[in-house]
């Protein structure tokens, strides 16, 4: 009780020695826990990004004995090179085909699956399989399907009386064919994201829309689904763009950028400069350009996530 007098200096023993150590430990525990991650982040991510930037201003070649800073020369060389522009143009074209198609397909199928009726799980699984399956193995299967003489695609075309094509060796068709494989691989992923978005739309909004006179599925879609899916759609578009920007596997296995650079894409250019010709400086410059595109897209995505968080 308060009325008990206490001689504090006499009564309170000095804190035990261990406490000083404990205080010290407490202060450093958090740093110790995050140190391995921090160290590896610097070594394996931040360091290399800085290096790639610096390297893009040098004439470094693997195995060469000298290195010199050459300023913007690598970039000047690139911009003067027709192949680079072809490569960038092809990449953008690829993105421009894959993104709208895979987003539209993903959304359409998600809507069909969610519109009621059975077999939801079945359909969802089927459309998701291409996302999971090793793309390289599937590219080999596609290659055989696209075989000019014995491929299933041309056989089917012939069966219905259409002309066969040399899908991967015709310069006009190579890139669109790769894009088609890209769409096939990506739309299931988009579908899953849309399904998640659809599930999170509150059911009572549809009830309200029905009471407000939106009788057809079509009008309910425009009144409720589409606006509610807005943020998800933006998000899916950006993710698809980032993913298709990174197209490489199918190009490397099926066309090697050919025929006549018709399917040369940015990562493939970087790969061949860096790891076939070992012009590391030039490859670094391509990597920087690639990085700028992907960073821009990712920053937009991050902004979207922030916005979504603020909405919630």
């Amino acid at each position, binding site marked *: 009780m308060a009325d008990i007098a206490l001689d504090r200096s006499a009564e309170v023993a000095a804190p035990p020695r261990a406490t000083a150590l404990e205080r010290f430990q407490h202060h450093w525990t958090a740093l110790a826990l995050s140190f391995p991650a*921090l160290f590896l982040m610097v070594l394996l991510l931040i360091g290399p990004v800085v290096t790639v930037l610096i390297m893009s201003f040098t004439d470094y070649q693997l195995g060469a004995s000298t290195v010199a800073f050459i300023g913007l020369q690598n970039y000047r060389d690139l911009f003067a090179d027709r192949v680079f522009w072809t490569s960038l143009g092809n990449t953008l074209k690829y993105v421009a085909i894959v993104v709208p198609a895979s987003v539209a397909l993903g959304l359409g199928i998600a809507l069909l699956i969610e519109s009621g009726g059975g*077999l939801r799980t079945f*359909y969802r699984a089927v459309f998701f399989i291409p996302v999971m399956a090793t793309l390289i193995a599937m590219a*080999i299967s596609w290659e055989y399907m696209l075989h000019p003489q014995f491929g299933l695609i041309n056989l089917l075309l012939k069966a219905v009386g259409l002309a066969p094509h040399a899908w991967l060796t015709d310069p006009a068709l190579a890139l669109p064919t790769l894009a088609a494989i890209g769409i096939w691989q990506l739309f299931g992923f988009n579908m899953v994201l849309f399904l998640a978005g659809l599930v999170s739309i509150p059911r009572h909004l549809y009830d309200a829309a029905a009471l407000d006179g939106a009788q057809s599925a079509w009008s309910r879609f425009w009144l409720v689904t589409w606006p509610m899916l807005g943020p998800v759609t933006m998000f899916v578009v950006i993710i698809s763009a980032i993913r298709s920007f990174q197209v490489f596997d199918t190009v490397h296995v099926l066309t090697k950028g050919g025929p006549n650079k018709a399917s040369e894409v940015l990562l493939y250019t970087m790969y061949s400069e860096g790891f076939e010709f070992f012009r590391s400086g030039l490859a670094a410059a391509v990597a920087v350009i690639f990085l700028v595109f992907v*960073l821009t897209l990712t920053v937009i995505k991050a902004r979207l996530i922030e916005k979504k968080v603020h909405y919630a």
Partner: protein
Amino acid sequence: MTAFLRHAVLLVLAAVTLLPFAWMISTSLKPRSEVFLSEIRWWPEKLHAVENYTAAFAKAPLLQFLLNGAIVTASIFVLQALIALPAAYALAKLRFHGRQTVFALVLFCILIPPQAIAVPLFLLFHHLGILDSYAALILPFIISVFGIFLMRQFFLTVPDDLIDAARMDGISELGIVWRVMLPTAIPAVTAFGIFSVVAHWNDYFWPLIALNSEPLFTPPLGVAAFRNAEAGTDYGPLMAAATIIIAPLVVAFLLAQRRFIEGIAFTGLK
């Protein structure tokens, strides 16, 4: 009527989607004489399955590829978790100087596409002399900033009381990570694990750069090498090899498809 239409459309799309798989498996059962045909034949007249699959295993060390894939993906995931979980815990639940900075670095690193830093990593590994080894395949991915971010977000939802209770019970901070946070975060860790394993099992770009020797090849690299050696001559064993390479993930997916889809969607949305 609408239901019928819905199923009709979806079934057609499903058939188209599965076409490459069906054709791959069908071809893997055919003898060479039936591969090069000018007509569509789904089921071979002469079943050649045993021969093709035996040939696939004989012509390339497929089991070795699968084993390499398993070793590499498992190592990557275990190390990622070992490194990311303590950091995620510190970022989510501890107050320390520099926390904002560390988290900002994590957010920045998420932006970096792995392909963009392949050249400097290649050179680093070249100078370290560890190219063309398991280490070269595993090391670049043991730090998953995405994993740190994801687990931090999950840990934020774990009540502080639980952590305080663990402290009162005498569990150390590192002990809290493994004995308290990890068990409560099993769903998130599973989702991240699926994401990580799928990504690295299927990765082609980095193994292509880092490896030279066939005995170390991961499944995608192995099947690509098989095809470079075989293409045009005989598709039966090649398709058998491709089927074998995709089988582990696809079978795992079919067995636990809800977890897979949730994992990929969950990690995709963050």
